[in-house]
Structures are given as C-alpha cells and as structure tokens.
C-alpha cells in the first residue's frame, strides 16, 4: 500500500534578525526561494540582508505509513511588513514564532506575533526559542519571557540543522495532536 500523502503549511515568524531565514535554510531539503535584499540604515548595522516578501522551503518526512510534506513559509520581521503576515498566514496549519533568548529586544515582537497567530485561524501556535544558552533551562527562560498566550515552547537552535529539524518535527506533532483533538470534539 502506498504511503498516505499529507501536506502541512507552517509559518515561521518573529522579530527582525531573530533567525527565521537561517532556520528555514537549515531545515529545507529543497532550495529555499527567498526575497532577501541588502539592508540599509540602522538595520545594516545588525545584519547585511533581510527578507522583504516571503521565504519558501520544504521538508519531507517519509515512513511506511505516511509521506508528509511540510511547507515552510517565512515572514519578514519588520513592523512595516506586517501585511505580509496576513498574506503568508492564509491557510496555515501552524505558526512557529521565533525568539532570540539572548536578545530581549526581540521578545516584545515575539509576544505580539504569538498574540497575532492565536487570534488568527491558525490552530497550532508554538514558540521557538533560538540561541538558548546551554546553561539555561527552557523553563527558566520562559519565566523571564512571560508569554501571556502560554504557547508550547520548543528549544530550537537555528544554525544547527539537527536542532532546527527536530524543532519542526515537534511542531508537526503538535499539529497532529491538535487535528486529532478537533476530530474527537466533532465526534462527541
């Protein structure tokens, strides 16, 4: 019997410079299609390029039973591209909001993105904690981060392929759990 084919759309969001593009580049097993351009002004001081439209990459997981394609959509981080969130989040199964554990300037944006996706039709919303110091437990970080939406937090080191991929697989299992509980609610 052929494996069941399933496709899920996952949006990667978060503040400017938090590692969204890096994460997608490290996870994707197809060439990432992006819209990166050179930064200017203040932004050029923190990094050389930035996403102005969206990024698109894929990650495929196959076993005997399922052939799962994850479609990864990255958004621009800057407030001026807020409209891209509306565009990219259409039909999304999940949002992974990235935060830089070592840069608290990114935390407000992460909380805003969590609130945004919680209020949207996106069923599964998770917090991806990038650059968590080896000495810091994720619970310790969460105490300081203080997420009002109480979303599931996943440690996710964007420059480490293994860490990035296991984070996205964790998001997938959250999506499947949420879909399953939705079905059970309907059956009751």
């Amino acid at each position, binding site marked *: 019997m052929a494996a069941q084919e399933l496709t899920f759309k996952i949006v990667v969001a978060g503040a400017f410079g938090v590692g969204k593009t890096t994460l997608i580049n490290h996870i994707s097993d197809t060439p990432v299609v992006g819209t990166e351009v050179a930064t200017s002004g203040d932004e050029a001081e923190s990094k050389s390029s930035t996403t102005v439209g969206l990024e*698109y990459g894929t990650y495929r997981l196959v076993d005997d039973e*399922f052939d799962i394609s994850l479609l990864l959509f990255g958004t621009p981080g800057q407030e001026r591209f807020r409209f891209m969130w509306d*565009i990219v989040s259409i039909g999304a199964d999940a949002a992974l909001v990235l935060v830089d554990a070592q840069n608290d300037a990114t935390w407000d944006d992460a909380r805003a993105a969590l609130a945004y996706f919680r209020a949207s039709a996106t069923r599964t919303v998770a917090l991806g904690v990038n650059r968590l110091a080896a000495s810091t437990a994720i619970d310790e970080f969460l105490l300081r981060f203080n997420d009002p939406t109480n979303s599931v937090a996943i440690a996710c080191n964007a420059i480490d392929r293994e860490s990035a991929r296991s984070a996205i697989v964790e998001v997938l299992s959250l999506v499947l759990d949420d879909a399953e509980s939705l079905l059970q609610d309907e059956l009751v």
Partner: protein
Amino acid sequence: MTMTEPLAVRLSEGTTTRAESLRELLDSSVQVLPGVAGMLAARTDGRALAYCVATSDPGALAALSAAALQLGQRLVDVLGVGGFDELTVRSPAGYVTIYAAGPHTILVVLSHRTANLARVHLGARTVATRIAELRTSLP
C-alpha cells in the same frame, strides 16, 4: 508519531479526484490556447493543486504566486481603484500572469514572449471560471 485512522482518511478525502480533474483541465487548456506554455492551479494559501509546467519546483511557483496575487490585490486596494483582474510579470522569456479563480484558488499562466497577451487573458479567464466551478462542485 501517532495518528488515528479517521484523521488520515479525513485529510485525504476528495483530493485525488479534484487534482485529476484540474490536471486534465490544465493539460487541455495549455494545448489549445495559443502562446500558452504552462499552467498551475494553487490554493490561495500557496499550496499547489495541479500543474503542467516545465519547472523543477512547482511548489515554489505556487507559494510565490499566491503571495504575489495578494500583494497585487492590496496594491489596487491602496490606490482605491477597485477590484483585481490579474497580475502580469514580463521577462525576456515571456509572461507569467496570475489570476484569481474563485475565492479559494489561483491560476498561474506562463506564456511565450511572442504570445498575444490579450488572447491569453481571454482564454485564461475562461479556465479560471472552470477551475472555480470544479473547486466548488467537488468534495
């Protein structure tokens, strides 16, 4: 990974029939419309539904086209000039034109540089209407 049977069945329901009908429609349209080199239908959220295009990555074409259509719609909104008809990009190789095919689907048409774009629009709009009908009539 654990998954119950009902979920797997529910998620795949109807998609095969729909993809086949769409694929047949796109194939035959590419053959009859002068100047048209390929077509792709995708959901407005950027997931490819069916295609007959010579690109190695139809998924990326679908994702970018869906975003481009939304941007085009917002552009005309900002200008306050009413509705969106289509979005065309011209390159040395030809044209890429993106149409809305009902509220949930987009149609991407690739045409040769020598194509008569007005004729392409005429044919493509009929195809877009057919796609919208197919998408509502099938489960």
